[in-house]
């Protein structure tokens, strides 16, 4: 391991005398130095020395015992997304480590800073098919920003410093450190811990080039119909204020991706709604009409762009991104503005003219009106006896006033929640965007609560997704946590059913899913709950849930065969979005 290049600052204060510590204790000392507060984990054979050391750190490091390692990593993701800090996970070797795979892939594609520590068999047993040995490094290589196996405890400080630095800097992502049992036990001299601030082969942020910012400003100033689309980059870059300032000065309408949602308040004067397959009508249609498209911290996912060869072909594209690999990846850029948007946005703001694109903005509002009539009003005021998903979210908005953290799973309820939820604050919409991981919401909501303990956390989950990670009710029970759970229950795997209805002639193939009595199930975990199926009960029950101290579960029965519209059918252009 000759090339580990953690830069040592030589002008450091006087060194503490070194202590003799086990690798495990050194690891936990480093956690304290990095200001870690919460660890989500599950013990096992190969990580026992770390858990043994943790016994003595219980007063300084909170450990949340989950019910499955997938729950641990989703919780760490939820924590990272609401706190902005790196989420920490402990898992043992073999099955413990492989259970992290889904969460790692999810964190990778959604750029979430997560640090996983996995136990590994003794170094001398590597490659012998030892009990609970698995090649976790190679399994996780494509789904980690960085990973490393420690076989000698002397490596721990430098590797961990690198791990924290890599996970949280630049475009964040998951890092996995696999530590063999002998290294956990080995006694080492532990000196002053030095956080890492530079790795020569890694540049977290590209240098901002003024030339591009100037070119971008020129295009924007000349534009008649400029349109801003933004993603999670604004939130990850902590540039919400800078971004709002840019919109307010330039007067450009702005639409969010599902991951960018809540970076600006949903009722911001420049906000025109959500992009993508189930996004709003205006931003999708007008993507193919704008003359300058300004993409900020987003990556042109196929669910956002629809058919690429018919995507914004008329527009000049300005792309602000911290990751050079995103430039030109899917959409050809006219002006690439590399860099951290926290730096590039103020530069751009200073160069753009103060403007109001009143007529152009009105176009969005007009299309919004059409969408209101055809989609939104019927969804929020259905003439059916059974509730719709939309009216549940609408009622919730009224009660939370847009101040709650909404954690969603994947499927119809996710699209409806993201379409109709109101947000006042950043880091409020937590969902599995890129990977589309069913089972994400319940554990992520647990982590979200630890990341933002003062805020109300509401998990909105489908009846299918809930059954994928419902074991985490046990984590809620044991930790006496306060997570509100709303199951929007349509007794179907709704999104797949919708597609089967629209594209497979209603051949409902294995989407009819039966569920247990969710309220009784919650009760078994000492979590109170109620079933709601009548409109007149809805608001009061929601109130009751929000007023309850501690977790609460609502099983809300909604229309079985309701569809989410608008919709950009797969293979269609964004402007071919269907309202019904």
């Amino acid at each position, binding site marked *: 391991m000759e090339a580990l290049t953690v830069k040592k600052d030589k002008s450091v204060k006087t060194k503490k005398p070194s202590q003799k510590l086990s690798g495990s204790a050194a690891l936990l000392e480093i956690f304290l130095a990095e200001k870690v507060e919460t660890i989500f984990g599950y013990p096992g054979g190969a990580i026992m020395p770390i858990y043994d050391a943790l016994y003595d750190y219980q007063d300084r490091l909170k450990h949340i015992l989950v019910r499955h390692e997938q729950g641990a990593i989703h919780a760490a993701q939820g924590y990272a997304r609401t706190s902005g800090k790196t989420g920490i996970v402990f898992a043992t070797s073999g099955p413990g480590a492989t259970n992290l795979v889904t969460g790692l892939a999810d964190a990778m594609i959604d750029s979430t800073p997560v640090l996983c520590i996995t136990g590994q068999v003794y170094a001398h047993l590597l490659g012998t098919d030892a009990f609970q040995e698995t090649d976790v490094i190679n399994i996780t*290589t494509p789904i980690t920003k960085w990973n490393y196996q420690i076989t000698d405890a002397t490596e721990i400080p430098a590797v961990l410093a690198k791990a924290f630095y890599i996970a949280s800097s630049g475009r964040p992502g998951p890092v996995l450190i696999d530590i063999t049992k002998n290294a956990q036990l080995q006694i080492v001299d532990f000196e002053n811990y030095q956080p890492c601030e530079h790795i020569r082969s*890694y540049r977290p942020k590209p*240098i901002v080039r003024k030339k591009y910012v100037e070119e971008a400003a020129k295009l924007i100033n000349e534009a008649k119909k400029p349109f801003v689309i933004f993603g999670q980059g604004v939130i990850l870059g902590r540039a919400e204020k800078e971004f709002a300032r840019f919109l307010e000065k330039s007067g450009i309408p702005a639409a969010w991706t599902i991951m960018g949602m809540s970076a600006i308040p949903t009722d911001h004067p420049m906000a025109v709604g959500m992009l993508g397959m189930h996004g709003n009508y205006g931003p999708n249609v007008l993507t193919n009409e704008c003359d300058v498209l300004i993409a900020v911290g987003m990556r042109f996912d196929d669910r956002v762009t629809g058919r690429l060869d018919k995507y914004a072909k008329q527009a000049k594209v300005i792309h602000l991104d911290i*990751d*050079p*690999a995103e430039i030109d*990846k899917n959409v050809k850029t006219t002006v690439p503005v590399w860099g951290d948007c926290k730096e590039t946005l103020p530069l751009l703001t200073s160069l753009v003219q103060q403007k109001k694109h009143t007529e152009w903005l009105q176009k969005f509002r007009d299309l919004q009106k059409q969408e209101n009539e055809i989609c939104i009003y019927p969804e929020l005021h259905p003439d059916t006896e059974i509730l719709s998903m939309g009216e549940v979210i609408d009622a919730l908005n009224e009660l939370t006033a847009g101040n709650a953290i909404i954690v969603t799973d994947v499927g119809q309820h996710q699209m409806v929640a993201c379409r109709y939820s109101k947000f006042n604050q950043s880091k409020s919409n937590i969902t599995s965007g890129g990977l589309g991981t069913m089972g994400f919401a319940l554990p992520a909501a647990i982590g979200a609560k630890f990341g933002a303990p003062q805020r109300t956390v509401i998990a909105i989950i489908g009846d299918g997704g809930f059954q994928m990670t419902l074991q985490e009710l046990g984590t809620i029970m044991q930790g006496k946590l306060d997570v509100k759970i709303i199951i929007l229950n349509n007794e179907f795997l709704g999104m797949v059913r919708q597609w089967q209805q629209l594209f497979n002639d209603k051949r409902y193939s294995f989407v009819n899913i039966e569920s247990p009595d969710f309220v009784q199930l919650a009760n078994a975990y000492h979590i109170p709950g109620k079933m709601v199926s009548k409109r007149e009960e809805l608001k009061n029950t929601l109130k009751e849930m929000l007023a309850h101290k501690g977790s609460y579960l609502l099983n809300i029965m909604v229309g079985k065969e309701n569809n989410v519209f608008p919709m950009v059918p797969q293979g269609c252009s964004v402007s071919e979005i269907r309202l019904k």
Partner: protein
Amino acid sequence: MSKQEYTITVYTENQIGLLNRIAIIFSRRKINIESMNTSPSEIEGIHRFTIVINETEDVVKKLCRQIEKQVEVLKAYFNQNDEIVWQELALYKVSTDQIVEKVKVERLLRKYGARAVVIRKDYTVFETTGHREETDGLLEALEPYGVIEFVRSARVAIINASSGFHEKLKEFEHIEPGEDLVENEFLNKQNEVFTM
């Protein structure tokens, strides 16, 4: 854009697992690696990968960006064949009896720039270096006499316009590297050696 041969040169830290990290960037996109060589570079401690693929420029450019994104990769360059000097090495094992009886060995060696590495009673091993056509040429010439074993190395290549990596590395050591090595000239400045 049509596919053609590109040579990708990657400067990296010397780290276990990096080979895999780089290789899966290709396999994930179902792109075949024609040849791959890893070796030390002109700088101690810095490794150099030489990878040959057949692809369009657009794809190669994106691949290089994905490679550079890896934490332990310093820089990735891609070049067409006229921008590099390259060689491959090939070894041929043939029966000594056959060769002595039937071929004018001396002429063969001269024609293909080959040399005999080992001459034993039972077999002889020839070696030649050159481009694919040259190493293939000798293989063809020897085939009628029975080639017992044949092996060819990956391509190794030197970039014509490169002045080495020493200066760049110095820049990387700084927290704020200079503008000239910072990723990718865009905006119509495509003609320099490196392309990202």
